[in-house]
């Protein structure tokens, strides 16, 4: 079908649960509960919408939104207002949702991300607070059980400005790139869990088409119940041609909500009553205006952290890593921390990147990463000094990661073996590592009071006895001369 001559306009709406201990308007525990057997375990008269109850706002959810707003450069409105959105549904206990309408806490802002090495951005319209609904467990007879555990959980709604694409642009991917970046930002800032499968990060695109160059917007369709990025992309890529085809054939397009039908591979109307969309918003009379203080805004700013976009940019600009590598590291807080720690001790950026994406990730994915960044530092130093070759280095790292303890040291206490010792133990080199030797000598000194007393009394032969103990502990791989030097220095004998 010929889609040239058309433009696609997409706006993305994200609902993300906020990481707090309690719900938005009551102090019930806010947590993900999936089993029907645990339905209604975290409820109270307030989140059940009993007669006579009143909402009380969770101050931490405001704080979390302010952190996001600070990071994304939003305008924070010191005074904002809550509103009621009125409609009937079994999972909406009060028959209205408390949200923000005319006066949200934050407007504007930008989410920046990389795609294929270049930076892009999506402008935001607004970010505001609201509350989540309960859940329905559908029964075989067509009815449902209502679980209000999720009712009242704090939600943040993040809405983008409409973005215009040509039909031959990868608009589906552009949306996924933005959403994934936003998701990571929320996780890294400690604002949300960002887990789409668990349902605490939900995306609803609004999509319309129009003839290229036109300024008026076409009929807008909202897509819902897209529970993965790939579903979202498929749904968009189906919907755009559907709308164009309708226009071309003179068929009428309805402003409606559609869902993705996986079996049929198409979007389908969600059946609803005709007059459903009049939400009759009005200011929530039970909540005075929210006034955000300068202090709250400043405190939020102190909690702003680097996010994957910042890390990616640094890896590209300061370390000239290839984009794919940079991106992979930047998306993992763990790998980002390791990169920083290892490179700061002098290792080569590209080498570190390879090891992080290779061995470190391999062990991490198996759930077996116990080594610390210091261990990698030691391995890479030995490698760089050509004391070991690459395959030996990998073996050393694996053994370091195995959490092996040093057997029977002088004190009888076990400690995690260091790569330098492993290298020595494997007979690959003498144990010259000053820090490791110092540690072993300290142990020997502590364990041999009598010998130490003799040494101090001037019996130089006793020094050799101590050296012997250390040689034994290092299975002969230590450098005896170095050991002797260290012992004499520590005990202050010539």
């Amino acid at each position, binding site marked *: 079908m010929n889609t040239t001559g058309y433009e696609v306009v997409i706006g993305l709406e994200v609902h993300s649960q906020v990481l707090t201990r309690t719900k938005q308007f009551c102090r019930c525990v806010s947590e993900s509960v999936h089993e029907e057997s645990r339905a209604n375990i975290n409820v109270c*008269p307030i989140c*059940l*919408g*009993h*007669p*006579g*109850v*009143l*909402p*009380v*706002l969770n101050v931490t959810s405001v704080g979390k939104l302010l952190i996001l707003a600070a990071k994304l450069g939003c305008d924070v409105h010191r005074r904002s207002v809550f509103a*009621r959105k*009125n409609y*009937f549904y*079994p999972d909406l*206990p*009060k*028959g*209205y949702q408390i949200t923000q309408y005319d006066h949200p806490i934050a407007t504007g802002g930008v989410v920046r991300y990389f795609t294929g090495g270049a930076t892009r951005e999506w402008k935001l319209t607004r970010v505001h607070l609201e509350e989540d609904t309960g859940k329905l467990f559908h029964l075989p007879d*067509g009815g449902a059980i*209502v679980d209000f555990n999720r009712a009242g959980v704090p939600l943040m709604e993040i809405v983008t400005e409409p973005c215009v694409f040509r039909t031959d642009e990868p608009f589906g991917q552009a949306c996924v790139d933005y959403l994934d970046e936003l998701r990571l930002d929320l996780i890294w800032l400690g604002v949300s869990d960002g887990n789409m499968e668990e349902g605490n990060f939900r995306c609803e695109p609004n999509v319309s088409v129009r003839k290229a160059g036109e300024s008026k917007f076409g009929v807008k369709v909202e897509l819902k119940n897209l529970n993965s990025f790939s579903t979202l992309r498929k749904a968009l890529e189906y919907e755009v041609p559907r709308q164009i085809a309708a226009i071309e054939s003179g068929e009428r397009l309805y402003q409606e909500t559609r869902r993705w039908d996986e079996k049929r591979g198409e979007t389908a109307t969600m059946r609803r*009553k005709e007059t459903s969309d*009049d939400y*009759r918003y*009005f200011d929530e*009379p*039970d*909540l*005075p205006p929210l006034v955000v203080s300068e202090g709250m805004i400043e405190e939020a700013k102190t909690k702003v952290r680097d996010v994957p976009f910042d890390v990616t940019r640094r890896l590209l600009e300061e370390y000239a890593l290839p984009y794919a590598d940079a991106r992979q590291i930047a998306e993992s807080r763990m790998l980002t921390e390791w990169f920083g720690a290892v490179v700061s001790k002098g290792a080569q950026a590209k080498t570190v990147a390879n090891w992080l994406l290779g061995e470190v990730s391999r062990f991490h994915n198996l759930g077996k990463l116990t080594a610390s960044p210091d261990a990698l530092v030691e391995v890479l130093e030995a490698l760089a000094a050509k004391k070991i070759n690459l395959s030996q280095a990998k073996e050393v790292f694996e053994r370091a990661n195995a959490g092996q303890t040093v057997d029977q040291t002088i004190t009888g206490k076990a400690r995690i073996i260091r790569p330098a010792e492993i290298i020595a133990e494997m007979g690959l080199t003498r144990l010259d590592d000053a820090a490791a030797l110092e540690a072993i000598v300290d142990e020997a000194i502590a364990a041999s009071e009598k010998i130490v007393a003799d040494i101090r009394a001037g019996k130089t032969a006793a020094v050799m006895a101590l050296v012997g103990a250390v040689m034994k502990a290092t299975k002969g791989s230590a450098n005896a001369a170095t050991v002797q030097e260290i012992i004499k220095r520590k005990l202050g004998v010539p």
Partner: protein
Amino acid sequence: MKDLISSTAAKLTEMFGRGALSPTEFLKAQTEFARRAEPNVRAFIRILDENEARLGVADRPDDSGARRKLFGVPIAVKDNLNTKAVETTAASRILKGYVPPYDATVVRLLKEAGNPVIGKANLDEFGMGSSTENSAFFPTRNPWDPRLVPGGSSGGSAAAVASLQAPVALGSDTGGSVRLPAAFCGIVGFKPTYGMLSRYGLIAFASSMDQVGVLARSTSDVALAMNTMSAPDPLDSTCQAGETDLFAAVQDFARLRGAKVGVVKELSRPEGLDAPVCANLNASIDAMRRAGIDVREVSVPLCDLALECYYIINTAEASSNLARYDGVKYGMRMEGADLAQGYIDVRTRGFGAEVKRRILLGTYVLSAGYFEAYYNRARTVRRAIKEQLDAALAEVDFLVSPTSPTLPFGLGERIDDPIKMYLGDICTVVVNLAGMPGISLPNGMSPPDSEHPKGLPTGLQIIARRFDDARILAFARFYEEISGHGYVVPPMVEEELAK
């Protein structure tokens, strides 16, 4: 015991406090009298048995803090205030069988201070009405004449106090629902400043105007009740109560001697009032002048749009507040196989006609296309009304008017004419729109006639600035002193007492 039945709550508290009388014994006697009087009054949806009445009630008075509080006094609680483990219906079928899992904050505070709940008082369904005829169960009667309405929506609360079935009652006032029945029944009815009492546990009608109120036979009793209930509540974001000692303020009423009072012209036009109401208003003004009070006329022009403004805002908020009654979670439950029809069935069967009317009007004024013309305009008028009242109260300390333009009317007389019914609220709604404190005091009787040997009561309304609750109660006490007006035992009740 009979003398005690007509005691003030202040006297009872004092006697319980020094051990001269046992609260349990008194509760028994009061309850027994209430049951005897009930067939003629029907003030209560239910009179509680002793166990229910004493659920959660402390044995000792609340001595914390400096304020004097009620102790041991049986309270009639309007059935739109939640009482834990005791059915609360808001006089609606849709809440039949609803047993709250918690006490309203004001109820809890009364219980913690040692005051039992004698019964759940009748009301207009969800507080919507001015006569208590909109109760889904039965209408309450005016103790002055059982063919007349007691006023509403807190008609049960007012009738209970007026017929000596309880010394003190809790009501709620959204557009006059405590003051109006107080006037019709010849007792004191106080609506505090919006925010003085917690609304947590008060079944919501119009959230920005609802306020718990107190009905009693004297101003001192009202003040004691207020001291017991007025406290900050973290469960109500609109509650701004402090630690004001209202009882102490009331005892210090003499200093109100130099007060300035403004009579609201728009609410006191003789052509708009029943003759006895007008006459008693004038007599009250004279009494005040004789006592040295500067009484002048003030104008609040927007009073002439107050009812329209009130009925747009209250119905808008109510249409939203009542959406939770859907048959899913509590009360009357949904039946049948279809959800969509289920909602409609429950709400159609569960709500009375007046409630349905207001829900529909509220839905209308909020809907797309009409919001600007109705709701938004009403909000503008509301702000302007407050500004006019503030301006008037910058010139004087208190405003006065009749509480009701008419004497109590007959059961069934206005029920088929909603607008006529609404017009009875003309004097009281401005106070709720502005969030100010207002009180109705008995200010005399209509001329006695063959039907009414003592006449029928009228009420004087006093209005003050927001958070001037201590002063308005003190001035009310002052008025009681200088006018000699106060509670009079209705003939029907005298008969009952004599038995």
